[in-house]
Each structure stands twice: as C-alpha cells, then as structure tokens.
C-alpha cells in the first residue's frame, strides 16, 4: 500500500512492521514525530509493545539495553544533543552485543543552539561499535529499519538509521508500506541465545581482566566484518521480496565519470540533478552516495572510484582541525590503492541548504586544477 508520509513517520512504520517489542524514547526536535506516531500505534493496540516513557536519552538507551538483554526487539530514536547524551550507553549496547536499532535524525550540535541538519552528531559516534546507515529517501528509511534488525540480529551489533533533519524527516514523499505478512517472513521473531533468563541466571558485562578484554574486542570487530557480508547479502534478499535494493554505496553515472562527487544523505539527490545538468554541458561528472559508514565498505569504495580522475568529497560535517569526516574515511580507503587526487568541500552545516548551484560552485573551484592546494575548502560562505 502506498501512502504519502514524512520521513519521521516512515521510521515509525518501519519499526511497527518490524514488530518491535519495546520502545523507549525521549522527544527532541526534529525526531519527535517518530515516537509520537509509535505511541499512538501502541496505544491503539495495533502493535503489541511496551512503550516506556523516560526522563532522558541516557535512560532511553538504558531501557533499550535492558529490553534487548531480555531478548526483546528494542527501538528508540533521537537527534543531536540526545544522541550525545546517550554516548556512554552506545558503547555499552555494542559491547554487550545487543541488536538494538535506533533512528537518528541528523541535527547539528549546539552551541550555537540549532535544530537544523548536519551530520556531526552521528559521525561523532563513529567509534562506538554501531553500524550506521545514511538514507536519502523516506522509502529507504522505512526499508532500512527492517533490514537493520535482520543484520543486527545476525551479527549481534546495533544499528543506527540516519536521515537529515527536515529535508527528509519533515518532507512528505510517497512510500510503499510493505505487506506485514511479507515482512514477518523476511524478519522472523528474534530468538536471542544469550538472553536474561531467571531459570538460567547470568551476570553481564562484569569485570574483565587484560587477559581476555582484547579478545572480546576482536569479536566485535569480526562481527562488523561479518555485518558487511550480511548487508550485501540482505541487499539481494530484500530486493527479491520487496523489489528495492540497498547496497553499502549507491553509484550514479560513476563508471565513465572523470570527476566523482562523493556525498551522503539527501545531498546525493541534489548532486544527481547537478550531475545531469553538468553532463548536458559535456562535463563528465558522477555521484557516489555513501550509505554505510560502519562497517566501512573499503572494497566498494575502491571499486567505484577506480576510474575517476578527480574525487571531490562533499561533507556536511567537520572534524575541527582536520577534514570532513567522510573525506577522512574515503581517503583512508584510497590510500595505497589509488593515486587519484581528492578534494574536500564542507557545505551545508547547521541546515544551510545544499543547492545544485553548490555543486556547480564546487566543480568550478576545482576547475582544471591537477591537485588540491588546500586541505579543505568551504563552499558558499560569507566573505
């Protein structure tokens, strides 16, 4: 069934179709509608779930950790300061190997106080052991929630589904709501081997000496390597049932492109419009949309960028005193494998719009240069 809905409600539908059993969340703009709709769905008894109202995002994640430890399918959603407040427990959820799924609506970090989009909130949580899937359409948001549980429960690592504030969270698009029976078949109930059980009591997360700590970390890393295999496998399996395909990266006219614009989130759809316009004028440009940040798809990135003469990474985020975070990730994948020059542009922080003109400006700035003459470039900033 098709329905016109905002990105936030696409998350709620994704969670409902996944038959989540425990939802614990604290409201924050621009995430609020996610849990607002879920609370209504639970109250109307259309979803058999516990909806736990909590006093902070830290508590929301703590409740999800408890629920997931008991074998329940747990869900939450947040943004920016809320995600930052969860930070300690993000490590805990991953270290305890709990397949929690959370939506994060990208909102720029304060101060200065803001509610608009950029990716610094989620990218700051890069090293917590959470998978991160960046979406560009409401359909992808809904589908990604279902796929996230499938992958998470296979490898026992949590997943963050990420979408831009307002340009996706509050933008209405036509979304196909998959048939519940098909989702049930694709995503069977979660049977957690290590769950809390009064008949077989255990303590979890106890003191671990240097003798074994490192091996637990190796296991997490191996689980992430396996997650990459599962994501690629589920891309095919999901397409077979639902007709839509979600890989780690999403290329657009990359094969014969001399210049590849690397973007993530909704900036990709604008980049693709710009690519069409630039191609019409004979400029061979392509777009590579990064969908998965962790586990990082090294091989896919190298493969997609192997023919490029120039790579331009447009970041809606910045690591102060370094590069954009995506630039640092993509560059590290290319190092030792490719001699292609890489430019890094920072655009659209704090919800500043990224227009097709933004990309024309970037392409013009790179021009005929053979290599970058600065570590990073700011685009469309006031002089």
């Amino acid at each position, binding site marked *: 069934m098709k329905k016109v809905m905002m990105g936030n409600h696409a998350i709620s539908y994704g969670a409902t179709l996944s038959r989540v059993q425990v939802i614990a969340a604290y409201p924050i703009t621009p995430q609020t509608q996610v849990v607002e709709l879920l609370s209504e769905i639970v109250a109307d008894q259309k979803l058999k779930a516990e909806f736990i109202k909590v006093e902070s995002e830290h508590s929301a994640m703590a409740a999800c950790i408890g629920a997931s430890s008991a074998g329940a399918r747990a869900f939450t959603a947040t943004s920016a300061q809320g995600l930052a407040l969860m930070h300690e427990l993000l490590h805990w959820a991953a*270290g*305890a*190997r709990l397949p929690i799924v959370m939506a994060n609506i990208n909102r720029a970090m304060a101060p200065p106080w803001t509610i608009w989009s950029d990716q610094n909130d989620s990218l700051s949580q890069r090293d917590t052991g959470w998978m991160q899937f960046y979406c560009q359409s409401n359909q992808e948001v809904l589908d990604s929630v279902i796929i996230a549980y499938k992958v998470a429960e296979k490898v*026992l690592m949590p997943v963050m589904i990420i979408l831009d504030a307002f340009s996706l969270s509050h933008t209405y698009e036509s979304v196909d709501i998959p048939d519940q029976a098909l989702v049930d078949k694709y995503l069977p109930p979660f049977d957690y081997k*290590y769950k809390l059980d009064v008949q077989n009591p*255990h*303590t*979890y*997360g*106890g*003191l*671990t*000496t240097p003798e*074994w700590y490192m*091996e*637990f970390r*190796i*296991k997490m890393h191996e*689980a992430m390597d396996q997650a990459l295999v599962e994501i690629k496998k589920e891309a095919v399996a999901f397409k077979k049932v639902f007709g839509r395909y979600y890989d780690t990266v999403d290329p657009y006219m990359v094969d014969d492109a001399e210049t590849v614009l690397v973007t993530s989130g909704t900036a990709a759809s604008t980049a693709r419009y710009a690519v069409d316009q630039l191609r019409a004028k004979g400029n061979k440009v392509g777009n590579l949309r990064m969908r998965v940040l962790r586990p990082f798809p090294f091989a896919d990135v190298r493969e997609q960028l192997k023919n490029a003469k120039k790579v331009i990474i447009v970041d809606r985020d910045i690591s102060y005193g370094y590069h954009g975070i995506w630039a640092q990730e993509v560059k590290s994948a290319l190092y030792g494998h490719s001699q292609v020059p890489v430019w890094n542009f920072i655009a659209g922080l704090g919800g500043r719009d990224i227009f097709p003109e933004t990309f024309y400006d970037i392409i013009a700035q790179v021009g005929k240069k053979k290599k970058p003459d600065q570590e990073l470039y700011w685009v469309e900033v006031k002089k």
Partner: protein
Amino acid sequence: MAKDRKKIDFKKMEELPPMVMSLRSMAANPTGSWRNLKPVIDLSQCIQCTICWKFCPDAAIDWIDDNPVINLDFCKGCGICAEECPKKCIEMIKEGK
C-alpha cells in the same frame, strides 16, 4: 559461606561468548582487605527481614540457617547494611579492634 572462588577460564577464543557473561572474575578477586570498618550483627536483635542481604552492593552477605552472615573475604565495609537495618542491630567497628 564456602563460595566457589574459581573464575571461569577459556582455552581458546572460540570458547568465549560474544559478550562478557558470568566470568566470575569478582569471585576470584577478594576485596575484604579494602575494609577499615567491619559490620558486626547482633543476631539477638535481628528480625531476619533480609534487608541487609538485599542491599549489600557486593553480595557479601550470605543467608545461612535463617540468619545473615557477613562474608568478610568480600565485605568492603561500606556500611550500607548498618544504615539500612531497621532494627539498627548492625554495628560498624574499626578493623583491628
């Protein structure tokens, strides 16, 4: 009282569960030497309410023959049992006295 002090050990990495569970690392880590105050229970006043047993953050109180017994190998002397005892029949006494 005789608690199993053996910590669970592994020979190989494959034996490890994905997350830390019931390693019993604290069982092999007696913390009684941290203590400078020792709880002493006056059993003649004790009403066997089990509150001290429930509140002990180190599970260092055993319940033996309907009475609380402090496990001094693990008791850190925090005094929570004495604070919570409704009959005030647990006294914290300076170690070495």
